[in-house]
């Protein structure tokens, strides 16, 4: 256990330490010493500021992410189960997926204004694709023997979906959700940089424009930490939900 923690912490500690030492007598205005940045971090990210800027960002992030997850999984199951539907929509999906989502921010702004709705839509539009496409693949890959078994034992209708198809596609859906999470964070920041009156992205741009450079850097560090914590939480949830899958794979490796 201690060894594992050491492995996780060692490289970040070295990198941070190196940054601290190498930047310590930096004269550059744009890359101030880490010492100053850390001081600014404490001063800048007070409870008030967290409430005013970080909480709105997180709410947008979760709203967009959850919406994308629900729509992506629902559509993915429908497309995955229906060959004709898949043949019809797949080329269109590939086209939409190929559009870099930040490009759509100005367009979506025209329709949805510059409020929270716009940001949520941007996040949904960007991170739905990995969820959708992975769900389609996962549903298509459900073992034919599993499907035969379900049919032979009268497992049909809603139970077929919730007890057979979704669990079986679960590992692949989780892979899509994991990719989508990092995309969602990126889009949260970008959408706030375009037009917002609060939020992490907005605040970082504000700092940059007012030449509050250590504060700007501290915001970037905060974003990094946020992404790290979110992916850690995701991994924990995934491990819980897919414990059977890890076990199955370990058993297969042994056998």
């Amino acid at each position: 256990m201690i060894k594992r923690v050491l492995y996780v912490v060692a490289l970040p500690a070295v990198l941070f330490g190196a940054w601290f030492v190498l930047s310590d007598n930096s004269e550059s205005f744009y890359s101030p010493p880490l010492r100053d940045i850390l001081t600014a971090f404490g001063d800048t990210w007070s409870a008030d500021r967290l409430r005013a800027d970080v909480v709105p960002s997180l709410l947008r992030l979760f709203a967009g992410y959850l919406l994308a997850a629900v729509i992506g999984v629902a559509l993915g199951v429908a497309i995955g189960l229906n060959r004709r539907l898949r043949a019809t929509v797949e080329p269109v999906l590939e086209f939409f997926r190929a559009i870099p989502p930040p490009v759509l921010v100005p367009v979506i702004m025209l329709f949805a204004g510059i409020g929270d709705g716009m940001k949520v839509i941007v996040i949904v539009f960007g991170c739905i694709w990995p969820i959708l496409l992975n769900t389609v693949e996962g549903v298509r890959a459900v073992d034919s023997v599993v499907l035969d078994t379900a049919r032979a034992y009268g497992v049909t209708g809603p139970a077929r979906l919730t007890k057979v198809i979704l669990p079986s596609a679960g590992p692949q859906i989780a892979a899509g959700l994991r990719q989508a999470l990092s995309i969602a964070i990126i889009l949260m920041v970008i959408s706030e940089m375009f037009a917002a009156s609060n939020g992490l992205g907005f605040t970082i741009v504000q700092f940059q424009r007012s030449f509050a450079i250590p504060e700007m850097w501290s915001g970037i560090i905060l974003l990094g930490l946020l992404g790290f914590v979110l992916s850690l939480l995701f991994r924990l949830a995934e491990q819980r939900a897919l414990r059977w899958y890890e076990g199955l794979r370990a058993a297969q490796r042994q056998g």
Partner: protein
Amino acid sequence: MLEVKGLRKVYRSGSREVEALRDLTFTVDNGDMVCLVGPSGCGKTTLLRCISGLLDPTGGDVRVNGKAVDGPPPGMAVVFQEYGRSLFPWMSVRDNVELPLKQKKVARSRRRELVDEALDAVGLTGTESAYPWQLSGGMQQRVAIARAVAYEPQTLLMDEPFAAVDAQTRADLEDLVRSLWKRLNVTILFVTHDIDESVYLGQRVVMLSSSPTVVQDELIIDLPAERDQLHTRADPRFVELRTRVYEQIQLAKKAAR
């Protein structure tokens, strides 16, 4: 009663046609145990999928107690060859056995009873909360058998259920199937490629030809009902019967060439 009449199955892909089953006719009376044996690749699995309603035949029909099969009939349970893929790895042993009963809307207390009885019958009491992949191959196939038993079927189809387990486990599982059959009074259709197994288990053996498949021959197994691995297999009558089956299978293979 299970009736298979003039069953034919042709697979089509593009302009290519493969005739898997040509013309199969046989019946299994209620409470009988009949083994289907044939050379490898003779379309046994296709036949079983047609009988269980998972596959539509091209011609002919299958009737269970006089009712034509179109889709999996209620009261029929299937044990598949690939136990590792047929049990759901995301569910515990108990949930695997219980799920079909939930779908049949069996009351909770009765479900509990059925699951416990079935697991007890296959000798797996105490593994309820384990996942299938935590068990050995033979135990997994026992879970699959328990699932079929708990379903309280009138007809039980078994598709080479012991092809993937080792020889000793296989002998145990054969005895298990015999004892369950006698106790539960179900009709069993047992598909296998193992000639000894078919003679040891069945009251009757139906021999299939190579693909495109027809019924090559049928043989009544007039061994005593009490069978055990040691004595039955050494019985001169057993050896005689297995030789008969073996000859027919060899004939079927030669005819194919």
